[in-house]
Every structure is written in C-alpha cells, then in structure tokens.
C-alpha cells in the first residue's frame, strides 16, 4: 500500500527539502512502514542507476563537427590525448551537475573589482582545463609525487593534501597562468565531478567567499600566505564541504 506522503519522502531522498521539512519527512518514516520500504527502494534504484546506467559521452567526431561548424579553432586536435581514466574524468565532469539553480540562490559576498577579474580568469581556466589534453601535467594520486613536481617550476611550494578519505581524491597537478603569474593548480575528484584548486602566494582574507559564474561555483580564501581559489561544477554546498575538509586536513 502506498502512503500519501510518498512524494514528500521522495523529495527528502532527493535532497529537495529544507531542514524543517526534511525533519518532518524523516519523522514520518519512523512511523510509516510503507515509506520506510519506499525509501529503501529509492536507495536501491539510485545505486543501480549510478552503477549501471549508461552515461553517454559525445563522440570526438561530433565535438569536432560542432566546433568546425562554430568556426572555432582549438588546439585540441593536435594535443596528445591524456590517459583513458583521466580522460573519462574530465568528460564526466563536463557532463555533470553545475547546480546553477543553487548557485543562483547563494548569497554573493562582496567580491571587489580586482577579485571579479580573477574570478573570470579562474573560471575560464577551469573550463579550459576540461578540454582534452589540458587537465593535468602530473598525474598522481600521491601528494608526495605531486608536491615535488612543482619544485623548480614555480617559485613557491604549494600545499598539497590528499582528501581521498573525505571523498575528494587528489588526481594530479598542473601549472597554470593566472593573475599575471604562474600558479599551481591541484585537481581533485568528487564522485563524477572535478575540482580545480588554484594556489599562489598572496594575503587576502581567511574568510571564504563564494561566487558563481556561468554555472560554475567558486570559493576563495587565503591562509598561510597563499591565496586559494576552488572552482567546480559541484553544487555550492558540496564545494564548501570540500574547502572545509581541505582546510581542516593536516
């Protein structure tokens, strides 16, 4: 027998409720066996789809045809393709959530004009990094490989942390050029999404500021003489969790 509250329970499952409503739904499940079963079924179906539903990626030929149609010349055609697994990372990430509805609703803390320009550059760099062959220069999930790689390539030592235990595995690093200087870009994964964390010496405010641009979310903060910009198509709450975990990690 189906309970009349089933859509409420489903909305709770989908994370569509505010805290008060979610509490109400969770309390309802404690007293309603049908909704408890339904919730378990929702989890099982979700897991099955996550594991086995085909996620189709646009073939390279289609991508090329569209680019050609747009009359856009890109260096992607001549770039060496990165290894398979990482190529899938950026492809998946290009196709997955940008949470722009959420992004549009989060409060934009006051970002000054200089930061606006950096915000544009950071988001553009993140998008560029998602193009074939542009994501990573050093591919390693080992922070002790990634950190020394930057030695001699830039004039500072970026802090490299692995957050695999927190569901944000380190995927690699890259040299980038932002704000008129070479910067370190650390690449993290989160489920099917990618996070670029840009680091360079600077001294801004330690309090994280969030902003959204073209559907990408960003968080900016400073600590220990470094400026940090995290960019991703992750929803804002998840990206904030990444920043919190990253700052808390030793």
């Amino acid at each position, binding site marked *: 027998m189906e309970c009349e509250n089933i859509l409420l329970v489903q909305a709770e499952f989908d994370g569509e409720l505010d805290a008060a409503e979610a509490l109400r739904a969770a309390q309802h499940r404690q007293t309603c066996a049908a909704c408890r079963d339904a919730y378990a079924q929702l989890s099982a179906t979700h897991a099955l789809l996550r594991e086995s539903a085909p996620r189709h990626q646009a073939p390279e030929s289609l991508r090329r045809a*569209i680019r050609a149609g747009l009359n856009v010349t890109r260096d992607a055609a001549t770039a060496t393709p990165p290894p398979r697994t990482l190529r899938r990372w950026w492809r998946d990430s290009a196709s997955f959530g940008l949470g722009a509805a959420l992004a549009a609703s989060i409060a934009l803390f006051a970002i000054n004009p200089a930061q606006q320009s950096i915000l544009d550059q950071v988001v553009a760099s993140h998008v560029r990094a998602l193009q074939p062959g542009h994501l990573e220069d050093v591919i390693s999930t080992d922070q002790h490989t990634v950190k020394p790689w930057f030695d001699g390539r830039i004039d500072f030592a970026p802090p490299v942390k692995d957050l695999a235990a927190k569901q944000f595995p380190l995927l690699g690093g890259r040299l980038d050029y932002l704000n008129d200087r070479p910067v370190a870009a650390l690449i993290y994964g989160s489920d099917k999404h990618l996070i670029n964390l840009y680091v360079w010496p600077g001294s801004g405010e330690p309090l994280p500021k969030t902003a959204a641009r073209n559907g990408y979310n960003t968080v900016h903060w400073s600590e220990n003489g470094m400026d940090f910009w995290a960019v991703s198509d992750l929803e804002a709450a998840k990206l904030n969790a990444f920043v919190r975990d990253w700052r808390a990690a030793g």
Partner: protein
Amino acid sequence: MSAEFEAVVLPHLDAAYNLARYLTRNPTDVEDVVQEAVLRAVTYFGSFRGANPRAWLLQIVRNTAYASRALVRGAVTVGLPGEETGAPTAPELIDHGDNPEMALRKHEDHARLARLLAALPVELRETLVLREIEELSYKEIAEITQAPIGTVMSRLWRARRLLAAAVQAEEGR
C-alpha cells in the same frame, strides 16, 4: 560571440548527447539531434540571459528530439526483438583495469538497464535520466520538460517504481 558560446554552452555537450541518446533511437539520429540543437542554441544564444546554460541547452535538445521522428516513445514503440535501443557500445564502457569477465558483466548490466530504461514511457524516462544521471534539481527538470514541479515529482516516482518492478521481474525469472 562564438568564443563566448563555446565557453558557456559547449561544456554541456556531453549532457546534451547523453539526454539525446536516451530519447532517440540510434547513434546516427542522436548526432543529428544534438547538431540540430546546437545550431538552434547558437541562433538563440544572443537572447539567452539565464544563469543556467546546461538546463537551457538540455531544454533545446529535448524539444529537438521531440520534433524528430527518431524519438523513442517507450512502452509501445520499443522492445521489439533485435532492436538497437541505444545500448552502449563495448569500447565506450569497458574499463581497461577490469578483467574480461568483469568487463563483460559490466557491459551486460549496462545493456540490460539501457533496455529497461528505453521501455519506460518517454516522459517518465526523461525525468528519471535528468534526476538520476544528470543530477538536476526538480526545478531544473520542470524547466527542461516544461511541466509543473508536482508533475515532475509524480513522474519521477512512477518512473522509479516502474523501473524497480521491471528489474525485479527480470531477476525473478
């Protein structure tokens, strides 16, 4: 303008392709639908003011697919013997880290789920794909499918229930 279009819209090409693939019959039709949709998107991009280019592009893809004769309506029109319903091709899915048996089983799981999804009525299938695969919010799905949020919620529930029942029926046989 084309540089801006490329930066704003093209990152969502995989999402566009994925949705088109779930809505239309075979890979050739899918590419036609996506190309046509991108062409329309270029045309309308000048008037695009929204904050959500992905939902915007997916809405165009969906409308284009619905206008195409290749639309898979589900339930009645699919499930014919031997019909290719958009099951993934092997090289696309096989992870080279897997041993051959694992890879084969994965491939079979993918093919089976693709078949069961294709059998869902199209309005349930698109809602489910947008939620579970594209991870969109109810509000975004409502925009893309041009349906009220309440309708999105009940379609989603029906889609999930039907799929779970179909999976159980197959496993019990």
